[in-house]
């Protein structure tokens, strides 16, 4: 899932300073699962905003709504009749949702309430960590299913650097060295021979470095 977390309250409050009518817009997708921007978080943030304005004696009308997703047009289009009444929409979706909101409603002020962090997993309740960097050219078949792009601090492709100590990364003892994990896993699978293959220079042109990416599926287009 896309993992995000709410921005500091002070930052959000500063963003909406002076606005009188605000829609706090949640998303039932990834950000609900990672407890950052679902229905519950919308209610919490809307309440916090009302408390802030009450304290300051500044009026505000805060509406709450949560869409199934903010990254699909059919759900964002549900706002078309009402969105014009708001001074701003404070989106609790990931950055994708905020972008799409801005794309579809040119006259609406679209503000982000979250910081979008990474593609990751829930390790346990309340703990998420990165697993994929969306590099556009997956090589997990060669690395035992573990990604050196997302999980090696240096993004190394052919084994660990000299900073791998006791299975941990040199940047933090809390970060496992993914190349140690890859080695251990391939050993367990009797596939250590895969490490004999030298990975070629990666084509970063299909990663974000190559500019905004797009997929067109003619078989699905209407």
């Amino acid at each position, binding site marked *: 899932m896309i993992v995000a977390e709410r921005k*500091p*309250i*002070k930052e959000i409050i500063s963003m909406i300073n002076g606005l009188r009518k605000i829609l706090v817009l949640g998303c039932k997708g990834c950000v609900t699962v990672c407890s950052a921007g679902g229905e*519950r978080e919308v*209610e*919490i943030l809307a*309440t*916090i905003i*009302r*408390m*802030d304005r*009450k*304290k300051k*004696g500044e009026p505000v009308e805060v509406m709450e709504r949560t869409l199934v997703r903010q990254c699909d047009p059919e759900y964002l289009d549900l706002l078309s009749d009402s969105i014009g009444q708001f001074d701003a929409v404070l989106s609790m979706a990931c950055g994708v949702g905020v972008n799409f909101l801005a794309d579809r409603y040119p006259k609406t002020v679209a503000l982000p309430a979250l910081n979008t962090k990474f593609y990751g997993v829930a390790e346990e309740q309340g703990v998420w960590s990165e697993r994929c960097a969306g590099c556009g050219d997956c090589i997990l078949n060669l690395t035992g299913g573990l990604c050196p792009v997302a999980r090696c601090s240096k993004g190394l492709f052919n084994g660990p650097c000299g900073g791998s100590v006791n299975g941990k990364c040199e940047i933090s003892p809390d970060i496992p060295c993914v190349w140690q994990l890859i080695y251990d896993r391939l050993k367990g699978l009797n596939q250590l021979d895969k490490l004999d293959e030298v990975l070629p220079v990666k084509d970063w042109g299909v990663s974000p470095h190559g500019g905004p990416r797009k997929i067109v599926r003619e078989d699905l287009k209407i």
Partner: protein
Amino acid sequence: MSGTFKPDVTAFCCRYAVYNFAEDPGGLAEAGFPEGVKVEQVSCSGRVDVVRLLKALEAGADGVYVVGCEEEKCHNVAGSQRAKKRAEYIKDVLLQLGMEPERIEMFFMSRGDEARFIEMAREMIGKVKALGPSPLRGK
């Protein structure tokens, strides 16, 4: 301020912990339970979510507290530990809003310990009196 200020405090209390006395407000008052504390019984302190606590503060409560079972002996295993984390979360929210974090507290008690229950209420009323009215009160 403290001379005329009558605190308005909401207490969310685990029904299991206060089972033997909370249904008798008259008896509680007689035993020394202070004025100004509105007791809301809940099935477990872990059932009191962040929104409920925030809404009580938004409504103008000068202070809010949660009473749960002793941390390691919660009737529902981890309910009071969850409640404690939520209270801590709200303390941080209050700080970021420029309000006093002491306006929310978490307390733990043994099941049926009426004296401790009264002591906690008095402690909270004392704290709130020192803080003065909530800046959200009456707005």
